[in-house]
């Protein structure tokens, strides 16, 4: 901040005037606070507790009719067919008992009939799962983007500033990584790693996703290395590392920031797909992707609340983050100065 207060202050003044950008920043900060609170264990620690009946609907829909009598009404056709043959169902009592047990109405515990946003197959609170999923998905997105930005900036700085064989080496790596389409690369890595977990997902996304940032930062460093302030730093005896990361880096950090923001969005979306396919987070935790994977079979039964909750939570965050990125770019773009 101290290195160039003018740039950042000017950028903030421009950003301040962007009401949509500010609103998006607020939304992102709220999500960040939710993530931090969930990670610290202040909220939704009990997300995996089975508190409601199976597929308890959201409160605004009202409880589902009890399974006994209405189930018979709903299945009037097959029962009618049975009566035609004049055969009483010998298993009727047992079935009713099983239905009661499935609904969670055992003598020892009472389960809620409805929850604010409904419940999943095991009676877990969808709202709490969505909050817990926010923690997972946003954490993965942020850390993976930070890793990708770190690698991209480091490689880009080295390649752009040093040139020569280092530049050739990183350019070669870049062309290798970019000649495989991103999702295919991620899937291939996921297939060979064959290990679930938040850390694995972060590593997969971060280690494969540095290329875009690398290309931009390399171009910036090539542009900056011949500028007078860098030559002056050289003249007063600043070491090469100091010139690269103390003198030039603050002047290209706006590019890193915008790219970081872009990659958070990209990685959140990728994590959702990976987790959905079963290559993402483990079964002991929940992400929006694993919620969507569960919702796949629920939707056919007409239980739409879990997919709706996961989609809504994700859409709000990703929309806010994307618009925030646009606002950041507008505020930080030196061409507008």
């Amino acid at each position, binding site marked *: 901040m101290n290195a160039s207060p003018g740039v950042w202050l000017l950028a903030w003044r421009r950003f301040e005037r962007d009401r949509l950008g500010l609103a998006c920043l607020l939304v992102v900060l709220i999500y960040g606070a939710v993530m931090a609170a969930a990670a610290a264990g202040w909220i939704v620690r009990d997300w995996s507790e089975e508190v409601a009946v199976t597929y308890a609907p959201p409160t605004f829909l009202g409880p589902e009719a009890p399974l006994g009598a209405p189930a018979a009404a709903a299945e009037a056709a097959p029962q009618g067919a049975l009566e035609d043959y004049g055969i009483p169902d010998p298993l009727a009592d047992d079935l009713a008992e099983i239905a009661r047990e499935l609904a969670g109405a055992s003598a020892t515990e009472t389960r809620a009939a409805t929850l604010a946003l409904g419940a999943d197959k095991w009676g877990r609170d969808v709202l709490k799962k969505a909050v817990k999923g926010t923690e997972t998905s946003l954490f993965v997105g942020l850390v993976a983007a930070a890793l990708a930005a770190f690698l991209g900036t480091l490689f880009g700085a080295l390649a752009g500033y040093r040139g020569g064989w280092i530049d050739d080496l990183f350019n*070669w*790596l870049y*062309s*290798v*990584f*970019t*000649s*495989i*389409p*991103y*999702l*295919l*690369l991620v*899937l*291939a*890595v*996921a*297939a*060979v*790693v*064959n290990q679930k977990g938040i850390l694995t997902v972060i590593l997969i996304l971060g280690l494969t996703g540095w290329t875009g940032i690398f290309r931009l930062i390399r171009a910036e460093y090539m542009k900056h290395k011949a500028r007078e302030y860098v030559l002056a730093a050289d003249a007063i005896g600043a070491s090469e590392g100091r010139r690269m990361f103390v003198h030039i880096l603050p002047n290209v950090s706006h590019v890193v920031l915008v790219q970081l923001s872009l990659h958070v969005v990209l990685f959140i*979306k990728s994590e*959702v*797909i990976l987790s*959905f*396919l*079963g*290559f993402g987070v483990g079964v002991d935790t929940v992400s*929006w*992707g694993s919620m*969507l994977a569960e*919702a*796949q079979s629920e*939707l*056919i039964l007409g239980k739409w609340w879990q*997919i709706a909750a996961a*989609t809504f939570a*994700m*859409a*709000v*965050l*990703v*929309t806010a983050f*994307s*618009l925030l990125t646009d606002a950041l770019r507008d505020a930080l773009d030196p061409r507008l100065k």
Partner: protein
Amino acid sequence: MLAYVVRRLWQFVPTLLGVVLLVFFLFNFVGGDPAYLLAGKISNPAQIENIRRQLGVDQPYAVQLWIFIKQIASGDFGASWSTNERVSEIFATRLGPSLTVLVPLLAISTLLAMAAAMLVAYLRGSLTDRAIMIGCTVGQSISILVYILVFQYVLAYQLGWFPVQGWGVSFAENLLRYSLLAIIVGVAVSLAPDIRLYRSFFLDEINQDYVRTARAKGLSEHRVMWVHVLRNAAIPIVTNILLQLPGLLAGAFLIERFFGIPGIGREVILAVERSDFPIIKAVTIYVAVATMIVNLAADLLYKAIDPRVQLK
């Protein structure tokens, strides 16, 4: 021109070698011993040793790498580990269904996105422009999985307008019956990012001097947009479509899987789920080669359309 093409082709060699090394590294070092994956839970050392010999993983790494390079050069990646079908056979038979879905998908989404992008670029800064752009951002924020699940549930399962999934034998039946919903979902997913991208292409052209000149000559706004701007903006759009192609072939796997389309993408996702390494290796190499060729083709096309472009 010829010298340029030759030089570019020559540059393929180190990149391709890098891709081969990366794939080899991933599957032979990171992936662990495939014999254990194949042998299953109950197996004795002799069986494992047998499988290792069959796969060639008991050889030194240098020999394995040489075998891999020979496989690539001959286009023969052996047989799938799970179905024992030849990998080349799999690709030959899966390409048709993939193209049946992808070609109409790409054509429809490009035309729609171009029309919408031209409209919003023309109305730039207006309320309509902002509303459509924010709509696109929201549309992009919803996972492709949700589009697939919801469209399939509502349009196919509940309303019954389309078959939920399936694939027939005749081309017409596949295109007009089984591909339709997949195409609709694909268009819905790609519309938002495409409109945003194409809008920026159109805006770049609208701010050019030749547009001002055309207006100053008294040409109608209609002619300026449809003739001058459209033709120039078409260059980056065509290039962009070309560059998307290889990724799309493998990247449409979610759509192919959910709608039961027996294409290459579905084969990729099945292979990933079954740890079927020969297929994943082959797809990665093929797609990387296709990407490099398409990149070159895009540059040449650029040159052909726009004579000002200098090929370096």
